[in-house]
């Protein structure tokens, strides 16, 4: 934000950056070959739900659009304890490109209706043969990715070594978040 627009109290809402999501499919291949983490076929979008008819209509439009696809199972909508809404999309684990298209459709509809500034993050989950899980989180406002690997569901501990390994594996392909303090923990994120 510019100095003058902040001094004049006219801070703008940060716009969401959507395009980097399409770099995920090739990164998923790298992650599978280099770190053994395969996509589970689940992805989710986390956003701010707004009170009012306009928003509920947009959300209905998204759910019906994604549910109309014949090959995909139902879309789930849930809310978390911080008041954000999660929309979970399932696809065939092989079809990461299709998953990203679905996620992008969600973003585009929200953006079209003027709710783009309410997008927080998007999460695509991965798992390896031994059961270790990791999520690749996309921050819409920063336009960067970071890994989130919960070690166990209830203990709230992160597998930092795995996260750093993922970051280093993908650093050449995706814009990874450099600021470690922005690597928000997403405990109990749906779809992970």
């Amino acid at each position: 934000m510019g100095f003058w627009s902040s001094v004049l109290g006219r801070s703008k809402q940060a716009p969401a950056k959507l395009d980097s999501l399409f770099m995920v499919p090739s990164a998923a291949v790298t992650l599978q070959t280099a770190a053994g983490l395969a996509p589970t076929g689940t992805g989710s979008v986390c956003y701010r739900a707004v009170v009012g008819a306009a928003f509920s209509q947009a959300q209905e439009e998204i759910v019906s659009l994604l549910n109309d696809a014949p090959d995909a199972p139902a879309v789930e909508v849930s809310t978390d304890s911080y008041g954000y809404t999660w929309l979970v999309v399932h696809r065939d684990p092989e079809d990461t490109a299709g998953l990203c298209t679905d996620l992008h459709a969600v973003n585009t509809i929200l953006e079209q209706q003027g709710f783009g500034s309410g997008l927080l993050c998007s999460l695509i989950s991965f798992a390896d043969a031994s059961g270790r899980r990791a999520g690749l989180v996309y921050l819409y406002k920063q336009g960067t990715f970071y890994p989130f690997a919960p070690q166990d569901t209830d203990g709230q501990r992160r597998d930092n070594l795995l996260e750093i390994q993922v970051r280093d594996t993908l650093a050449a392909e995706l814009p990874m978040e450099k600021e470690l303090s922005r690597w928000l923990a997403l405990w109990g994120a749906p779809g992970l």
Partner: protein
Amino acid sequence: MAHSRFIKDRGLTFRMTVTMFLLGALFVVFMVVLMGAAWGSGNAGLVPIIGVIGLGIAFYQWWSSDKVAMRAMRAREVSPAEAPELHGMIDRLCAMADMPKPRVGVADMDLPNAFATGRSPERAVVCVTTGILRTLSAEELEGVLAHELSHVAHRDVMVMTVASSAGIVAGMITQSIQYGGLSLLGGRGRSNNNNNGALPFYLVAILVSLIVYAVSFVLTRMLSRYRELCADRAGAYLTMKPAALASALQKITGEMAAIPQKDLRATGAMNAFFIAPAISGASLKTLSSTHPSLEQRLEQLARIQAELGRQMG
């Protein structure tokens, strides 16, 4: 095609810019008048020094604002481990607003309140009292935090300190009467035989300072109210929940009774006259308060809520 639901409040921006301009002009005029008055007594050179000292004090206040405010409120900084929910909320809001995360403080105080301070967004502290943590629900607290983060993003500490620099200088001169500090200004004549020029300047300086102090007081308070409205706006757009901030404000100001919950038909005949909070025109209270009235703030939040819910093609 992407729409924006952001209402541009040109009126508010205009009023605020005019107020800031007037405050700047006030400082310059004050210095010029003092200099003109000092010319006669041959001390004009001292006036810019007074101005620089005043600006220096304002600069120091701004520079050390985080430490001073934290100490004044007896607040301590809390780590993510101590207050995970508070930090989680601020983390998410900062990620949505794309701004650096400020430090987080908690003050052990029953009064429900929150404030943000610090010389720049990188050095900011957002502080809440334990009273507000008890009083508000998670949603309402988030609204308040978004309001405070907007103060940080708007650099309100800097704007308000710069704005008050004319008042600081004027206050400095008026106060120095007590300590005879002004004899320095007009006092060079004392060593000479001719002491005539000193007395009028002394009087003029005090008179002008008092006027400038009063005008600056009214203007800075006005500016402060505009800044609060700006922060409300930006905060409501950040959380997308104007209603949460509205109910938080009602709880904090303790003016819940302003809009009664009770059915009109259930109240007595006399009570029906007390429904509308009768605040109109510029009373002394509205001129001197740092925050806009609850009514004004709720009106603005209602406009934002309506805009967010509007259906678009």
